[in-house]
Each structure stands twice: as structure tokens, then as C-alpha cells.
């Protein structure tokens, strides 16, 4: 399969994600320059972490206007797989491809650390190789990951099983104490109605190799690969 990684001028996890998709997992991977209009026939578009446009205004606020985002929108409409990681997730929210918005972390500080996540649904293209209730250990690194949505939206997400990842403790317990950044309902990752656009704050590309102390992130990429090959 072929991964495409969008490069905004302020992206800084683009090379990391490339490394994992290409060198670690062995799949063809291309960079997609944000000013271009060509998705190069990829099977999955990844919006990587970073600070798309410096993000002084709001994370993703300016990145959403990049020329390539038109194509990404159409691609998603047609059912193409789009994965937003961290800043990529923030861009997807600003684009309206996923509902809700991000606020500053509740302690008003940037947070870089490993967290535990509970996997809530494995019937998606992004999680089919995982088990429901599986606990993943992955790093987060963000200033604005405090997920917010109107109560109506939260209801809908719950009813439609669209929350994919929640912050929890090592035993899978979801509680306010383990909700590092203050997200509504401890949401760390969610998916759109059609099931082809997912966003998550944790960084799977930072934990896909033994040497980096966790390989729990691989399951996300491997699910995508499995889905495309199925």
C-alpha cells in the first residue's frame, strides 16, 4: 500500500511518521506538500504532528486553508482513509471533518509524556488489529489537547461508538485523575460517521519500535495496512 504524509510548513512529525510507515513497516510512503493539489494516489493520507502554521492563532487554524486541504476534503468525502495525529487531529477539527474543538490543556502547560489509553472500538479501519479494551501505552506531546464538544455532539459520539481512544490508567480505569489534559469524557481519539477519518492526540509513530520503549503504536498503522490489503 501507499501512505501519503502531508507536510505543512510547521509540521515536525512528518519525517518521524515517514520513517515508521516506510522504514519500519516497509510500505511505500510519499510526502504531500501542502501547497500542491495532488494526493498521488495514496491509500491513506496522514496529517502529522507539529505546528502546521506556527499555530500562534489556534492550532490548525491556518493549516486548514492550505491548498491541499481541498483535495483531502474531497478524498475523505469519497471514503478515502485520513488519519490525523496530534496537530493533524487539530487540523481535522478545524476543517470540520471531525466534530468539536481543542482547548488548552487543563494545567495550561505543554505536556510530553507517556499515557495509557483504552481502546474503545476495533471495528474501524484504524483499529481492526487491536482488541476492544486493550490498553495502549503511547506518548502525547501537545499544548492544546483538551477536547471540547457540545453535549449534543458528545451524546452522538457515544451513541455511535465513535470515541476510539480514552485516557486511562495502567489498568484501563478511565477517571478524571487519569484525564491528563482535561478532555471531555477523557476522549483521546475519535472517528467520523463514515468511519474513514480518524483523529487522535497520542503519537503512534513515537512508539512503533522496540528501542523507543513501546511498540503499541504499530497497531494503528498495521490496522490501516490490513484494511487496505483486505
Amino acid at each position: 500500500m501507499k501512505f501519503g504524509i502531508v507536510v505543512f510548513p510547521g509540521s515536525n512529525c512528518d519525517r518521524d511518521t515517514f520513517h515508521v510507515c516506510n522504514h519500519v513497516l516497509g510500505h511505500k510512503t510519499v510526502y504531500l506538500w501542502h501547497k500542491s493539489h495532488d494526493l498521488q494516489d495514496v491509500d491513506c493520507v496522514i496529517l502529522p504532528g507539529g505546528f502546521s502554521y506556527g499555530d500562534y492563532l489556534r492550532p490548525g487554524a491556518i493549516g486548514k486553508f492550505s491548498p491541499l486541504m481541498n483535495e483531502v476534503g474531497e478524498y475523505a468525502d469519497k471514503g478515502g482513509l485520513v488519519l490525523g495525529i496530534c496537530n493533524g487531529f487539530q487540523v481535522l477539527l478545524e476543517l470540520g471533518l471531525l466534530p468539536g474543538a481543542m482547548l488548552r490543556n487543563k494545567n495550561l502547560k505543554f505536556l510530553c509524556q507517556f499515557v495509557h489509553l483504552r481502546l474503545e472500538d476495533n471495528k474501524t479501519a484504524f483499529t481492526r488489529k487491536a482488541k476492544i479494551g486493550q490498553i495502549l501505552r503511547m506518548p502525547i506531546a501537545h499544548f492544546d489537547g483538551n477536547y471540547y464538544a457540545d453535549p449534543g455532539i458528545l451524546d452522538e459520539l457515544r451513541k455511535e461508538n465513535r470515541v476510539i481512544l480514552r485516557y486511562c490508567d495502567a489498568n484501563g480505569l478511565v477517571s478524571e485523575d487519569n484525564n491528563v489534559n482535561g478532555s471531555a469524557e477523557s476522549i483521546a481519539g475519535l472517528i467520523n460517521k463514515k468511519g474513514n477519518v480518524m483523529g487522535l492526540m497520542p503519537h503512534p509513530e513515537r512508539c512503533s519500535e522496540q528501542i523507543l520503549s513501546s511498540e503499541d503504536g504499530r497497531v494503528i498503522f498495521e490496522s490501516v495496512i490490513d484494511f487496505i490489503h483486505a
Partner: protein
Amino acid sequence: MKVRILVSFKESVLDPQGQTVKHALHTLGYDFIKNVRQGKLFEIDLDGISEKELEKIIPEISDKVLTNPIIEKFTWERLDG
């Protein structure tokens, strides 16, 4: 032309920055401060558009670019004339 746009969180959204400032002021003894809300300020110079266009454009860019309407609201005013 010069306009000022003020952006703040909607009432329903918590404003932890404002809370922190309030807390800091209380520790310094300013305990008569009841509430603080923090927001953003934009001052924009424009040129070569009509008054009517201005009335249309400022809300447009505020809505599209300067705020995220899910969490923020804005007001604006002319600074000149």
C-alpha cells in the same frame, strides 16, 4: 480604516487562563476581583475597501479565520472615523 476585533470564549466554555490570572491576583491580595476572562485582541489596518464591504468582511474573517465558532465569539468596532 482601522478596526478592533475582540475574541473571547463562549460562556459555556471554561476559561482556565482567566481563572489562573484571577488566582494570581488573589494571591497578591487583590481579593476584590470577582472574575477574569481572557481573550484575544486583533487590531487590523485596511485600505481600499468601502464601508459596506467592511461591514461584510470583518464578520467574515472573524468567523472564518480569527475564531473557532464552536468555542469562541467576537465583537468588533471601528477605531477611526
